[in-house]
C-alpha cells in the first residue's frame, strides 16, 4: 500500500515538475502578454495542482493533506479571477493583442446586430 502511494506520488510530482518548467518556458517564448497568460495558466493549473497532489499522497490522511487541498482550492477558485483581472486591465490599457483572427464582431446566436467595427465571421484579418 505504502509503495503504491509512493509510486503515484512520484509520478504526480514528476509530471507536475514537467508542466511547471514547460509553462515557465512558455512565459519566456510567447510573443505578447495575452499569450503569456495562457502559458502562466499551465503553471497555475496543471503544474501546481499535480505537484501539490503528489505532496498530498506523501502526506497521507492527515491535516497536512487538508491544508495542501486548501492551497489547491485557492489556486482553483482565485487563479482564474486574477487572470481575468489581468487580461481585462491589459485590454483597458489598450495593449494591442497579437491576433491571427478577430471574431469580436461575430454574430452571436440571439444577437440582432453584430457590434460595429468588427469583422464578419470567418474572415481572417491578416
Amino acid at each position, binding site marked *: 500500500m505504502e509503495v503504491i502511494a509512493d509510486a503515484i506520488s512520484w509520478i504526480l510530482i514528476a509530471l507536475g515538475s514537467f508542466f511547471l518548467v514547460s509553462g515557465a518556458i512558455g512565459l519566456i517564448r510567447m510573443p505578447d502578454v495575452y499569450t503569456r497568460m495562457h502559458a502562466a495558466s499551465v503553471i497555475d493549473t496543471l503544474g501546481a495542482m499535480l505537484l501539490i497532489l503528489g505532496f498530498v499522497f506523501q502526506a497521507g490522511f492527515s491535516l497536512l493533506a487538508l491544508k495542501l487541498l486548501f492551497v489547491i482550492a485557492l489556486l482553483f*477558485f482565485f487563479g482564474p*479571477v486574477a487572470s481575468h*483581472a489581468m487580461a481585462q486591465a491589459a485590454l483597458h490599457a489598450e495593449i494591442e493583442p497579437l491576433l491571427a483572427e478577430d471574431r469580436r464582431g461575430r454574430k452571436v446566436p440571439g444577437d440582432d446586430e453584430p457590434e460595429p467595427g468588427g469583422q464578419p465571421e470567418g474572415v481572417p484579418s491578416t
Partner: protein
Amino acid sequence: MRLDLILRVGAKLVLPFILLFALYVQFHGDYGPGGGFQAGVIAAGMVILYSIIFGVHAAKRIAPPIMVEMMVPMGVVIFTGTGVASLLMGNNFLDYTGFAHEYLHAHEWGILIVEFGVLVTVCGTMVAMFYAFVQRGRS
C-alpha cells in the same frame, strides 16, 4: 472594478475565509508560525481587498475611520494594561504568574491578551495607513 461580475463573485466567496484564517493564525501562535502581527496584517488585508473591489465607501461602513483610529492606541493600552496589571499583582512587568493559580495556565492567558493587543494595533495601523493613502488628493 466593482461592476465586474467575476471579481465581485470571487471576492464575495473569499472574504469570510480570509477573516477566519486571520483569527486562526491569531489563536494558534503557540503551535506554529503565527501570532498577533501576522493575524493583524491578514485581517487588514481583508478590509483592503473589500475596499478595492467594492469601493472605499463600502469599506468605511464596516471599518469606520474613527474606529480604526481608536484601534491603534487601544491595542497599546491593552498591551501595557496587561503589564501594569501584573505589576499591581506584585510581579514584574508582563510577568503573568498572577493571572491564574497554575503557572502554565497563567502564561497562556497572559500571552493571549497581549497578542490580542498586538492584533488590534497592527490591524488598525494597516487599515489607517490604507485609508490615508487613498485619501490623498480628495476631501
